[in-house]
């Protein structure tokens, strides 16, 4: 199985972090535009799912699957979104994304005194820890 890429967005639609592990198809638009498109899509999907929900109006959005890839999303109460693309064979990765949030993002980004909220993450330690964690997973391939 393959993990393609990970995006971290804050609640103001700015992409704080992007990391890519596998070759990704060019979609013909600039990376900035692509991230805006992705954020917009996730944002509308979230409102769509809560409007259509037969159960509760607070239904959370977990992700979607297509025949080629699967998108997983984890949203924190403060609105930070972790979006991970994997291939379609992956199972439920909510726990993994939660681990990335609590054990890697909070530890190496939020607790970093030099990090200002809402700015791009350029901590090498964070990238290293994230890579180690993703590579330790059985589905990771180069």
């Amino acid at each position, binding site marked *: 199985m393959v993990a*393609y*890429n990970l995006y971290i967005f804050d609640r103001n639609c700015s992409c704080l972090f992007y990391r890519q592990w*596998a070759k*990704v*198809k060019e*979609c013909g638009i600039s990376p900035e535009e*692509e991230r805006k*498109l*992705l954020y*917009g*899509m996730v944002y*509308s*999907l979230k409102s*769509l*799912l*809560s*409007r*259509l*929900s*037969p*159960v*509760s*109006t*607070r*239904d*959370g*959005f*977990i*992700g*979607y*699957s*297509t*025949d*080629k*890839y699967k*998108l997983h999303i984890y949203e924190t109460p403060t609105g930070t979104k972790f979006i991970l*693309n994997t*291939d379609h064979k992956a199972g439920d990765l909510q726990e993994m994304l939660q681990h990335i949030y609590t054990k890697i993002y909070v530890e190496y980004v939020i607790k970093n005194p030099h990090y200002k909220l809402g700015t791009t993450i350029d901590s090498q330690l964070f990238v290293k820890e994230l890579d180690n964690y993703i590579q330790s997973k059985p589905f990771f391939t180069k």
Partner: protein
Amino acid sequence: MGIYSVYIISKAGGLIFSHDMSYPQGEGEVEYSRYPVQGLVLEEVDRNIMLKYGEVQNPEITGQPVIQVGYSLVSINGEPVVNKCLPDGRTALSVIDDPSSFPIKLKFKRLKASINERIMLMSMLHSIYAISVRLSPEEGSKGIQCLEAQHYNINCTQTRTGVKFIVVAGKSQPKVPELLRKIYELYSDYVLKNPFYSLDMPIKCELFTANLVKVLDSYERERGSIYSTTTANN
């Protein structure tokens, strides 16, 4: 619950068919003895007054709010609110803002999506479907097959001609892709072969609806659930 609703979207993104197997549940009543109503933010949405912010918690069970965001105001002191107004012609919001109408009892209910709302949501899904193909990290993706929320899934399939079939189903419902194919089969048998049906127009074929209900029933039974079917003809 197994299957909640079925939608069909034409290739242009218009909703041409919708059918509900069950309606969203949930209602609650709250009483205020003194002016003003605190903690609730109400907003006019279409013909309803909807709760925009603030939940009313159940004093007995924590974590299970009586009134949730998204519920609409249905009655004040037992009098129904229709078109944002009470039977005597006063608007509901003016009654809530009037100190002399207290103590006041507000009843909220989760309403089913109006047909306008459905059309809007489905055209949204139509464009999101296209974006998901564009953003695919792999070549040749066909778009969203299953949208996952915490408590339910939305399953989609697109035919070669661009018509989309959408089934909103519970997490425990098995064989949904098979059901989608079955609905496609019914669509081609009872809608496309109907000489009075013109392409991309709303589907109003009794035979199609009747057969669809039959198929949905059989899939429901397969799941082994007991439910009361409420047939909706919008």
